[in-house]
């Protein structure tokens, strides 16, 4: 249940730490972001050690939701929750900005064809 205004942790190593969701890119009326959804975020906090020149507070990026605290139910009946709300940043071309994702990339990411993110993630679920 990610909505406009939700603060997200950034789980890749692009240099951003926190970002705020400002738009959920869905056509449905109920704009609640779930795992695997594409959103637009504005950066709130960046890691001072990494990429301070390129990433600044207030920059806009497209991102993919990877983990949500709200339980996600799958077609096979299983459901799962995560400890935090997190996303991974995408470049303007749609490829991941970081080179590593610390955390899980769920199966829904594969369904939405973000295959590069799946490869980068430490574990898949």
């Amino acid at each position, binding site marked *: 249940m990610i909505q406009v205004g939700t603060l997200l942790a950034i789980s890749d190593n692009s240099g951003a730490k926190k970002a705020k969701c400002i738009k959920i890119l869905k056509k449905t009326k109920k704009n609640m972001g779930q795992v695997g959804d594409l959103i637009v975020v504005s950066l709130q906090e960046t890691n001072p050690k990494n990429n301070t020149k390129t990433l600044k507070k207030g920059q806009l990026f497209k991102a993919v939701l990877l*983990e949500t605290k709200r*339980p996600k139910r799958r077609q*096979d*009946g*299983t*459901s*799962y*929750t*995560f*400890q*935090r709300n997190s996303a991974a940043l995408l470049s303007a071309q749609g490829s991941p900005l970081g080179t590593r994702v610390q*955390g*899980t990339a769920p199966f829904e990411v594969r369904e939405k064809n973000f295959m590069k993110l799946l490869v980068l993630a*430490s*574990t898949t*679920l």
Partner: protein
Amino acid sequence: MRLEKCWFCSSTIYPGHGICFVRNDSKLFKFCRTKCHKNFKMKRNPRKVKWTKVYRALQGKDLCNDTVFQFERRRNRPLKYNREIINSTLSALGKLDAIRSRRTNRFFENRVNKAKDVKFVHDKQLIEQNIGLVRSSHNGRMKDTKDSNKIKLDASMTLFHSKQEE
């Protein structure tokens, strides 16, 4: 489909039941129902909660480390389909279940009987040590009541006499 074990109470999780919690270090915790999930959220230790299987095994209340339970094991290598093997396992399932229930029942009966014996010996010792407190119930009580009546009567008579003298 794989039947997982609950992280908290170690009962089987059937398809469509329970919830899986993914920690930040991507460790999975699978729960069979909200009761177990809530207890996990309250940071309870399953070894200290009395209704879990771990607790009962630790306290020696349930049968564990038996050869019957070794059939149920996590196997990561899938078997190639073979009709004979499937048939034999299916026919063996009922027998195994019967053996398991018989052994667990026997274990339970033995445990309860042993506890009963221990309690009997303990009670006997208690009585022997405190034999002074034991009274042959009927006679003792009758005597007591009579005596107390007498005392009361005596007291009232003395009062009566003293008033008369005045």
